[in-house]
């Protein structure tokens, strides 16, 4: 019980800490932060329920006014901004990522986690993000999708990194990778 709580809390803190790693720019000038990598790792390492709760706990702390998002952003304003949908997608994305890793036991953990991160961390999160952006900016879903495609390559890299990191963590601390425990 205590372990569940502390792992959820520490992974929420990990999402915040990853936001402080300096931004990294893709070849064509799109800045990406490591925070969504943290969301993917919540799912791949902690599993569906705990991973989703960790992302949710992180959002609660952002909402109550802590500047935990990359660039020191936070507070309620980020939940009415054009990118708010992505944030709402984080807990669901982490849940789906974790569910995939829990259910699909075949193959290497790195590959499974990478695919899970693409499903949960990209497809689900972008689904929420696109709906949110379409609503706030008054665009159709297709138009909103066009506006966010520039960020997909960066997130694909993060999904691959999430797969590799999860496999390395499983080697280093097998008992703590709860999605496979």
């Amino acid at each position: 019980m205590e372990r569940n709580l502390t792992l959820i809390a520490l992974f929420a803190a990990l999402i915040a800490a990853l936001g402080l790693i300096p931004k990294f720019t893709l070849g064509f000038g799109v800045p990406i932060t490591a925070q969504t990598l943290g969301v993917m790792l919540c799912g791949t390492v902690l599993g569906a329920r705990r991973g989703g709760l960790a992302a949710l706990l992180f959002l609660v702390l952002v909402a109550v006014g802590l500047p935990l998002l990359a660039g020191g952003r936070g507070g309620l304003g980020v939940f009415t901004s054009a990118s708010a949908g992505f944030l709402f997608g984080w807990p669901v994305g982490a849940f789906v990522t974790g569910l995939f890793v829990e259910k699909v036991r075949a193959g290497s953990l790195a590959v499974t986690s990478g695919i899970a991160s693409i499903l949960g961390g990209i497809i689900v999160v972008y689904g929420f993000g696109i709906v949110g952006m379409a609503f706030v900016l008054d665009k159709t879903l297709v138009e909103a999708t066009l506006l966010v495609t520039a960020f997909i390559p960066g997130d694909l890299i993060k999904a691959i990194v999430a797969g590799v990191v999860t496999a390395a963590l499983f080697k280093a601390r097998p008992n703590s990778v709860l999605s496979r425990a």
Partner: protein
Amino acid sequence: MISLTSPIETRAHAWPAGVKLLGLCLATMVLFSQNGIVFHACAFLCIAATYASAGLVFLRYGAARLWGLWPFVVMVLIWHAVTQDFVAGLVISIRLLSAVALANLVTLTTKLSAMIDVVRFLATPLRRIGLKTQQLELGIALVVRFTPVLAHKGSQLSDAWRARSPKRAKWNIVVPLAVLAIDDAEYLAEALKARGGVD
């Protein structure tokens, strides 16, 4: 950990957090139900005047927190300039700025402890059905305590990397950072258990 609450005391600091949040929900719903340029211009000016009533420093700080929205505003304005519907683009941009400015206003004028009390209040139905929400509160405290710890460990890891490599550390430090987070979580769990556990 520094919260985003403004150190400049305004009258709104004394108002109950629940009332401010409820007002924010209603105001945001109204903003998104209207489409007139006149309405949105007036609404934006009212919000700016509210910020200004707490002083120029407060207004400037509020404006600085909106600066991050410029990519969206530029994108929408260009989009609507191309589609020959510039007024609609203006409405969308102003509405976005108003909605974020209003929400920021609540964050700026509400203390962290008051916000956490609201979270506790919102969790009341969960307590009624028998769930223990102390864990949520302990979880919040743990994240607040351990975010700076992990951030510090992250910067130590990237310093250690820089000492050995001419290149900057990118993803390489994520594995050790996550291992440190897992270890901290396991130690903490044992420490909590040794002190009587959480439930």
